[in-house]
C-alpha cells in the first residue's frame, strides 16, 4: 500500500519510465512494505485481541450456546473499548436480529458478524466522499494539510511521522509551526522536523498563528513545496475564541492556495472516551475536518470512539499511530482493525 498517493510529478515520471525497476519489482516492494506494516499494526493491537477473544471463548465454552450472559459480556467488551452506548446498542441489535433469524449459531459466526458490523460502519464512513490527496488537481501547490485536535493527543508527533512518510515517497514537504501557544511546542516540532529531514517555518511564542501560516504558504510557494503540513495549538473544543482562531487560519489558507486547506485531520487519542464524539462534532463544525488520525493505538486503549465518530459523523479514519518511532504511522485499514479486535 502506498502511503501517499499523490506523487511529485517529476519523480513520478522517472519511476513510471521504469528506469530502475520493473513493475513486478515495484509491486513486490510495495507488498513487502505492506506486509511489514500490517504485521506491526497487528502486533500493536494484539494485546487487546488476545484478551477479548479468550474471554468470549471461555464463556462460550461454559454455556455452549449464545445466551444473554454471552451477549452481556459482549456488551461489556464493546463498551470497554469505548465504542459508546449508542454504537454498542446498534451493533448488538443487529446481532440479536441475526440470532433470531438463526443466522448465527456458534461463536465463530458471532465474532464474524460483529466484525462485519464494525467494518461496515468504518467503510461506510470512508465511502462518504471525503477528500484526500487524490481529489485535488496535482498542479495545485502546496497541498495544505491542517492538523487539529485537543491538547495532548499527539498532534506534533503525528505531524513528524506524516512529514517523514510523505517525504520518503519523493515529495517536498514543509512544516508550519502554528502552535504558538504551548510552551516549547516549537522545540518539540523542530526535533521531529529534523528527524524527518524537513524544513520548518516558525515564529516566536505568542505570534498570531494565521500570520505564521501566511508566511509558511509564501515560503512553500517560493520553494516549490508539494505538501505543507500545519501544526495548530491544542485547544479544547468548547473554547470558542480558539476555535475562531482556527477559522481564521482556514480563511488565510483558502485565500492563498486554491481549495486549501485540502485536508484537515483531527487527531484523536485512543484513550479518549465518549467526549471524543463531541470533540469531532465541534471541530467538524468550525474547521471542516475531513478525516481522523487515531493515535496511541499501541497502548491498551482500543480507540473504539473512532468507530463511534465514523458512525455518527461519517468521518473516515485515515491514519493510525502505533508507536513512538518516526515511521509508526500507518494507513488505517478497517478490516484489519475489526479483524484484530475480534479474531
Amino acid at each position, binding site marked *: 500500500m502506498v502511503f501517499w498517493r499523490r506523487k511529485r510529478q517529476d519523480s513520478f515520471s522517472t519511476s513510471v519510465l521504469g528506469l530502475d525497476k520493473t513493475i513486478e519489482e515495484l509491486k513486490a516492494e510495495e507488498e513487502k512494505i505492506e506486509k511489514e506494516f500490517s504485521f506491526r499494526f497487528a502486533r500493536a493491537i494484539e494485546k487487546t485481541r488476545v484478551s477479548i477473544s479468550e474471554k468470549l471463548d471461555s464463556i462460550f465454552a461454559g454455556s455452549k450456546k449464545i445466551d444473554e450472559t454471552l451477549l452481556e459480556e459482549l456488551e*461489556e467488551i464493546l*463498551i470497554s473499548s*469505548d465504542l459508546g452506548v449508542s454504537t454498542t446498542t446498534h451493533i448488538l441489535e443487529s446481532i440479536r436480529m441475526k440470532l433470531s433469524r438463526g443466522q448465527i449459531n456458534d461463536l465463530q459466526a458471532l465474532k464474524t458478524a460483529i466484525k462485519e458490523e464494525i467494518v461496515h460502519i468504518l467503510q461506510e464512513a470512508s465511502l462518504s466522499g471525503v477528500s484526500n490527496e487524490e481529489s485535488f488537481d496535482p498542479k495545485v501547490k502546496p497541498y495544505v494539510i491542517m492538523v487539529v485536535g485537543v491538547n*495532548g493527543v499527539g498532534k506534533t508527533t503525528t505531524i513528524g511521522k506524516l512529514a517523514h512518510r510523505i517525504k520518503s515517497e519523493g515529495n517536498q514537504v514543509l512544516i508550519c509551526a502554528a502552535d504558538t501557544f504551548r*510552551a*516549547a511546542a516549537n*522545540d518539540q516540532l523542530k526535533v521531529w522536523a529534523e528527524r524527518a529531514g524537513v524544513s520548518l517555518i516558525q515564529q516566536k511564542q505568542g505570534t498570531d498563528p494565521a500570520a505564521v501560516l501566511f508566511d509558511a504558504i509564501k515560503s512553500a510557494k517560493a520553494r516549490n513545496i508539494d505538501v505543507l503540513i500545519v501544526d495548530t495549538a491544542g485547544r479544547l473544543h468548547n473554547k470558542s475564541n480558539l476555535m475562531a482562531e482556527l477559522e481564521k487560519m482556514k480563511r488565510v489558507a483558502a485565500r492563498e492556495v486554491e481549495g486549501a486547506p485540502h485536508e484537515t485531520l483531527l487527531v484523536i487519542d485512543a484513550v479518549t472516551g465518549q*467526549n471524543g464524539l*463531541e470533540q469531532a462534532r465541534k471541530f467538524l463544525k468550525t474547521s471542516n475536518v475531513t478525516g481522523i488520525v487515531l493515535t496511541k493505538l499501541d497502548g*491498551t486503549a482500543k480507540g473504539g470512539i473512532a468507530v463511534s465518530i465514523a458512525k455518527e459523523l461519517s468521518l473516515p479514519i485515515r491514519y493510525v499511530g502505533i508507536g513512538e518511532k518516526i515511521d509508526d504511522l500507518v494507513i488505517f485499514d478497517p478490516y484489519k482493525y475489526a479483524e484484530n479486535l475480534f479474531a
Partner: protein
Amino acid sequence: MFEALSEKIKKSLGSLRAGRQLTAEQVDAALREIRIALLEADVSYKVARDFVERIRQKAEGQEIWKGLKPYEQVVKIVYDELVELMGGASSRLIFTRQIPNVVMIVGLQGSGKTTSTGKIALWLKNNQERNPVVVSTDVYRPAAREQLKIVAEAVKVPFYETDSNEPLEIARNAVRYCQQLGYDTLLIDTAGRLHIDEDLMVELEKIKAETKPIEILFVADAMTGQDAVRSAEEFHRRIGITGVILTKMDGDSRGGAALSIKAVTNQPIKFVGVGEKYDAIEPFYPDRIAQRILGMGDILTLIEEVQTKLDEEEAAKQLEKIRRSQFTLDDFREQMRQFNKLGSMSKIIDLLPEQFFGGIKPKKEDLEKIEYQMKRAAAIIDSMTRQERQNYKIIDASRKNRIAKGSGTTISEVNQLLRQYEKTLQMMSKMKRSGLLGQLTDKFMGRFGGGLPHAFPFESEDNQEDSKSFAKKLKKKKRHKKKR
C-alpha cells in the same frame, strides 16, 4: 449528546414521578437509564455495574423518609452514593519536615503532567507557603524539559537544570540541590508513556526508591474513556499513587473517569485542572463532580428540592457527613494560616466598624492574647498526625499527651482546641442549614477553598453564649409564636 441524555433521564424519572408508590419495574427502568448516563460519562463498565447494583440494594431495603416522594428517594440515593464514592478525603497535600518533600507527578502521555506540575508549584507557593523547585526527568520526549523550564519561568519557580540524561541521576541531583539551597519542596515531572511500558515503570520505581516522595500524584485526563481504570490501576499497583489530578475539566467531558479511578485505586482526587492559565487549578469537591456526572441542572434542582424536604434529623446526619468530609483539622489550620496572612489582628480589627463588635472594640491586650493563643493552636495541630487531623475522634488520652508534648503545650490546651474545633463544626452546620447565609458560605468556601475563619479558634467561653443552647432558645421562641 448531553441534552439528549438529560432528556432521557428526566423522562425516566418523570415516569417515576407519577406514582405514589415505587414499583420494582420503575426502579429498574430508572437504574437502566442511570447506568447509561454513567457509561456515557465514561465511567468504567464494571464500576457502573457495581454502582447501580449498590443503589438497587439500597433502594430496596430503604427506610421511608417522611415527605419524600418515591422518585425523589431514588435520586437522593444516587446522589449520595456518588458523593460517597468520590468524597471522604481532604484534598490538601500533607507535608513533613523532611527537606525536601518530594512530590512525583506521573501519568500517561498527553495527560497534562508538565502543565500540572507548574500549576501545583504555583498553588503550593501561593496557598501553602511552600518554596518549591521543579525538575523534569522526561529525557525522552523532544523538548519536554524545555517546556517545563518555560512553565517554571512563567510561574516564577526555580527549575533544576542539568546536563545529565539519566532520569535517576537527575532526580538524585535535584534532591541534593534542594537540600543544599534549602528548598522545602521538589516537584518531579516524570516521563509519560503508555502504562504497559515496563521500562518506564521500572524507572519510576527507581525514582521513587531514590527520592522517597511524600506524594505521588497521578495525572488523568478528564476526557479519558474506559482505559482510565486500566492505566490508573497499573500505576497504582506498580508505584502506589497517593492522589489524582484530573486535568482538562474545562472541557465539556463529564469526567466519569474520576469516579472510576477513585473506585479502583481508592485514592482521592486532590486537584482538578480547569483552564490553560497556570492558576487554573482547584482542590477537588466531590459534590460538584457528582452533579457534573449526573450532568443536569434539572437533576440538581431536584436534588436541592429533595434536600430541603428532608426532616431535620436526616439533614443533621447529612450535614454530619458533609462536615466530616469537608472540614477537617487541616482546613481549620489552613483557615488560621489564611487569617494570619491578612496581617496582625489588631490591624484588621482597626479596619472594622465598631458595630461589628457590638459597640465595644476589643482591647489591644486581649487581641495579643488571642494572637498568642492562635499560635499555640497552630502548634498543636502541627503536632498531630495526618490521621488525627483528618479524624479528630481518634485522639485519645495517650495521643493528647503526645500532642501536648510535641507542641510544648498542655493537655488542657489540646482539649480546649478540640472543643473549639467541635464548636466550629456545629456552627458551620447551623450556618449551612440556615438558608441564605448557608448558601453564601458555601459559595465563599467553594471559591476560596477555605475562606476566612468562621470563628476564632480560641474564645473565652464565658463571654460567648453556647451556640447550641442559643439555637434551642431560638426554636422555642418560634414554637411559642406558632402557638399564639
